[in-house]
Each structure stands twice: as structure tokens, then as C-alpha cells.
């Protein structure tokens, strides 16, 4: 998209450099003059928040790796060493462990925003799929990171997740032994998880670059879901408008993050994980981290092992097909009253499944989890395809300027 201004090198050195590597111009057109729809609300600030969370996780993670020892004998002790002996080790570790949770909090806001405003629709399918890939990489990274402290819950989590592969017919057990490097989760498993936990964030960075690139090709969606028609009327420049708004949102988000880090740093951790891993005993009530709970509830809701794992994988994979599952040509939920109703039911299903995933298994809890799982899949594979064909939508504004400016101002501009 064409911006509000173009980069013109001012000095002779800048002109010389720009002729050889036009990176300053690229940054200028992507983050300074880039046209931003003028009607964006605060839900559009989570992209910036996520960028900052990724940077924080990488910086704190690289620092932790300088003090952590990835062996079954030393891992738990080295984490306690970081907490007690390393200068500001407690701060770095709490920033990292709570950072993962806040990273997921932001990504869920970002995903639900995209689902509500139809951000996955033509022409943003590839942008959306890249986002789903980032989300899956985040889950893999977070899972392996959770294993590293080598507490009881780390060990049980690693066991349960890697055992999902044993559900694959014929080769499942072989795949699991290959993942473990043994006959059970052990020292080789911990060591390779550490290596991969260090690698994956950089792969996330790579996909994020593609995600931002794709975003800047097709342009941002917006709360009214109409494309930019006139750059002058419908958009404002990224800097200062979006830059300042994003920074303000990042600051507010960080206040919330800092509250967890400094006042309730262990709120999201499990007491069982303060016991060193013991392969001969499984804690009586194992729970994954909160951001994986809805999927865990779906897994438990299904009585058959293979089908449970299939449903778990499908629950994630279906997200990538949203651009084609949703048949409505209208993007924004703002103009789709029936869609809105079902969207909020979907959100309730996700939150409900998350709650049930944290609870002990009882007959009534399993029944509710089954109903909510039906709601989850029903929304994606029944409601969205059918709704686009039958619902009566509200009239969509002609342009972004018409949607947000008073009629006189819109006409005058």
C-alpha cells in the first residue's frame, strides 16, 4: 500500500547508503508512513504488545540459559540457583515464566479480535495461516519451556504430551521412544527439549517477519471490515498515530504484567512443580498451564485414546481453515447480529473448556466438557459455513471515513 509520505534521504551519507541497501526506506515505509485505518480500536494494539512480549521472552530466555543446566540431575537445582544466588535471577526468571502467560493472554486477545472482525477473510488468508503457525510454534515452545525446571509437573506434562504420539497406530511407540531418546521421559528428553526451546523462538521470529510482511501487503483489517478506498480519507500515518497508541497500550499491559511479576509471581505455577521430578510417582492431579487447558479438556472429554488425540489436533488445525469455513462475504461481526450471538457462545465454550480442563474428572464435568466441545467444533464446522448463507446482515458503510466521521466532515474531506 502507498504511504502518506516517502522516505527521502537527507544527508549525502544517507543517500549513498540508501542506494546500496534501502533498509532505512523499508523501515520508514513499514513503520512511519505506513497507512493505518483511522477507525482501529484498542484490540488492534495486541500486535505491538505481542512483538514486545516476544522480545522480552528472547532476552530473558538467553540470560536464563547462561545459568541453567539442562540435565536431569542438575536442572531443578540450577533453577533454584537462579532464584537464590544469581544476581536478579529471581527477576529474570519471573519475567520469563509470567511472560509466557502474558504472551498467550495477548495472543488470545489477538486471535479472538481476528475472529470477531473477520480478519482472516479474503485477501488475508495467508496472513491468518501464518498467525496460526506462530500460535502452534508458541504452544510447542511454551510446553518445552515448562519441562525445563524438571519439577513433578514438568515431568508429568512432558510424559502426557509426548504420550499423545503413542496413539498413532503402528509407529506410535517408536515415535515416542525417538522423542524421548529412551523408554521414558528422561535425561536425553530434557536435553533435547532445552535445545529446541532455544531454537523455536527464533523460528517464531522468522514467521513473525512473514506475518508482518503479509500484513503490509494486504493492509490491516479494521472494526468496520471495509477496505481502504482512499488513503487520504480512510487512513492516518503509522507514526505518530499508531505508534503512540500502541506504546500506550503496551504500557498499560506491562503494568498488569509487572503486577504479576512483583506481587503474585507464583500465582500461575503449580505447587507440585516445586518437587523435583520423580519418574516413579505421578502427582495426584495433573494440570497443564492455563493456556493449554481448553485443548486438554477436549482431549479428556473423548473416551477413546486415538479419537481424543485426533480431536485435540483437529481443534488446532481447524483454525487454519477459518478463511474457507466462514462463508459470509461480510467481514466485521459489527454488521452480523446472528454471527455475534454465536461468536460469544464460542468464546463461552472456550473459557468453559478451559475451566473444566483445570478440574478433576467427574461424570458431570465430562458431560459438560462434551457439550462444550460440541459447541467448539459446531461453531467452526457447522455454524460458520451455514450462517454466511442464511443470515441477514446490516448495511455495511461505503468507506472507513463514512463509518467513523460525522456526515458533514466525511463530505468535506
Amino acid at each position, binding site marked *: 500500500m502507498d504511504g502518506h509520505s516517502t522516505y527521502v534521504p537527507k544527508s549525502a551519507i544517507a543517500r549513498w547508503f540508501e542506494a546500496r541497501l534501502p533498509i532505512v526506506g523499508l523501515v520508514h515505509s513499514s513503520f512511519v508512513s505506513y497507512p493505518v485505518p483511522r477507525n482501529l480500536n484498542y484490540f488492534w494494539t495486541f500486535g505491538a504488545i505481542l512483538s514486545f512480549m516476544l522480545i522480552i521472552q528472547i532476552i530473558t530466555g538467553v540470560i536464563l540459559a547462561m545459568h541453567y543446566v539442562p540435565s536431569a540431575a542438575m536442572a531443578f537445582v540450577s533453577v533454584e540457583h537462579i532464584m537464590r544466588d544469581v544476581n536478579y535471577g529471581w527477576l529474570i526468571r519471573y519475567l520469563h515464566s509470567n511472560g509466557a502467560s502474558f504472551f498467550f493472554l495477548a495472543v488470545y486477545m489477538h486471535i479472538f479480535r481476528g475472529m470477531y472482525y473477520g480478519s482472516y477473510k479474503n485477501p488475508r488468508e495467508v496472513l491468518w495461516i501464518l498467525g496460526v503457525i506462530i500460535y502452534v510454534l508458541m504452544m510447542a515452545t511454551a510446553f518445552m519451556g515448562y519441562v525445563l525446571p524438571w519439577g513433578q509437573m514438568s515431568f508429568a506434562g512432558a510424559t502426557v504430551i509426548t504420550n499423545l504420539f503413542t496413539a498413532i497406530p503402528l509407529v506410535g511407540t517408536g515415535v515416542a521412544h525417538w522423542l524421548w531418546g529412551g*523408554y521414558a521421559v528422561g535425561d536425553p528428553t530434557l536435553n533435547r527439549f532445552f535445545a529446541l526451546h532455544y531454537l523455536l523462538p527464533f523460528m517464531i521470529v522468522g514467521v513473525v517477519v512473514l506475518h508482518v510482511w503479509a500484513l503490509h501487503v494486504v493492509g490491516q483489517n479494521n472494526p468496520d471490515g471495509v477496505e481502504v478506498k482512499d488513503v487520504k480519507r480512510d487512513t492516518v500515518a503509522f507514526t505518530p498515530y499508531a505508534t503512540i497508541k500502541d506504546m500506550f497500550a503496551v504500557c498499560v499491559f506491562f503494568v498488569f504484567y509487572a503486577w504479576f511479576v512483583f506481587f503474585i509471581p507464583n500465582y500461575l505455577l503449580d505447587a507440585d512443580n516445586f518437587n523435583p521430578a520423580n519418574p516413579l510417582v505421578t502427582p495426584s492431579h495433573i494440570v497443564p498451564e492455563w493456556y493449554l487447558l481448553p485443548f486438554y479438556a477436549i482431549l*479428556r472429554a473423548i473416551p477413546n485414546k486415538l479419537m481424543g488425540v485426533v480431536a485435540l489436533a483437529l481443534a488446532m488445525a481447524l483454525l487454519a481453515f477459518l478463511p474457507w469455513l466462514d462463508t459470509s462475504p461480510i467481514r466485521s461481526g459489527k454488521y452480523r447480529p446472528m454471527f455475534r450471538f454465536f461468536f460469544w457462545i464460542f468464546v463461552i465454550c472456550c473459557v468453559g473448556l478451559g475451566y473444566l480442563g483445570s478440574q478433576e474428572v467427574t461424570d458431570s464435568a465430562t458431560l459438560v466438557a462434551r457439550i462444550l466441545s460440541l459447541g467448539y467444533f459446531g461453531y467452526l464446522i457447522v455454524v460458520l459455513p451455514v450462517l454466511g448463507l442464511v443470515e441477514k446482515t446490516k448495511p455495511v458503510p461505503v468507506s472507513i471515513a463514512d463509518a467513523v466521521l460525522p456526515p458533514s466532515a466525511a463530505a468535506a474531506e
Partner: protein
Amino acid sequence: MRVTPRERTGVELSHAEAINPSRRDFLFLTTGAVAAVGAASVAWPLIDQMNPDATTLAMSSIEVDLAPIQAGQILTVKWRGGPVFLRHRTAKEIKEAEATPLADLKDPATDQSRVQKPEWLIVVGVCTHLGCVPLGHEGQYDGWKCPCHGSIYDTSGRIRSGPAPLNLAVPEYKFLSATKVKIG
């Protein structure tokens, strides 16, 4: 062969070659085949290095002294990095396990097929659902109950209810004497 200027352009060349395969096609295909085999043979070591290594394979058998285990007790030992249950079964437990009709079982197996001596049940202590360690003397059959997802096993380690698909695995073992057993 006389080469005309038109034939020097890529499009004309490939069109001519499609009709009349040349040495270039042959070289292209054979080079491609060698590269594919080469890539696959280099990929295998990169994949196989993650499989259980020599030290893990070397530690695959242990000997256990059964003398201290009283009737009704379950001893948990570590074998291949995970738990093995050695259960000294009481007469009542043996009777219950043997009397269970096969039709009641999800993964049918007679009790006799799972033990060498009826009083000693030796099974891998890993739930066949997702690998948690089941708790002994729990569940309605007084066998095992998995704390993770509620699978229930009987006194023969057979799956009776819950999401686990299979019975607790019986490892390879042999009695070296009346009170000594070698697992693996």
C-alpha cells in the same frame, strides 16, 4: 548439429528436448536422483541420533530380590527409566483375577497368560493412556487407578474402565531363584 539462434533461447530448447530427449535430460535426471539418495542418506543419521542410545540400551535389565515383599504389597522399581510394579498377590486377589470372565475385558487376556507364578504379578507401571504412573490398591477392583484420567486396572493389571486402551504391559522377566527375578 547446426544450432540456430532461436534454438539458443530456453523456451525453444526445452520444447525441442521434450520431443527429443537429449544428454542434458539424462544428466538432469541422474543428478537429481543422486542428490535425492544423498540427501536421504545424510538425513537418516540426523534423525536416528534421537533414538535411544547405546548406554540406554545397555541398562535394559535389572535383578530384584522378592524376599522382603509381603503378600498384598506392591514394590515399585525403576527399569528403563520408568516404573515396574512387582505385586505379591494375596489368594483373594489371585482368585478375583482368575475368575473374571473374558467378556468383561476391554483388552481380553487371561490372568494365567499375564503371570509366570500366580502370586507374583509383574507389570510395567505406565498407564497405557498417556503414560502416568497408576496408584496401587485403588479403584473398584483394588488393582490400580490412574490419577491423570481415571483409568482403572484390576489385580491382573488389566484395563477395566477409563480411556486407556490396553492392559498394563508385562515386561520380559525370568525367575532366577524362588526369591530373585530378572527383568528385561
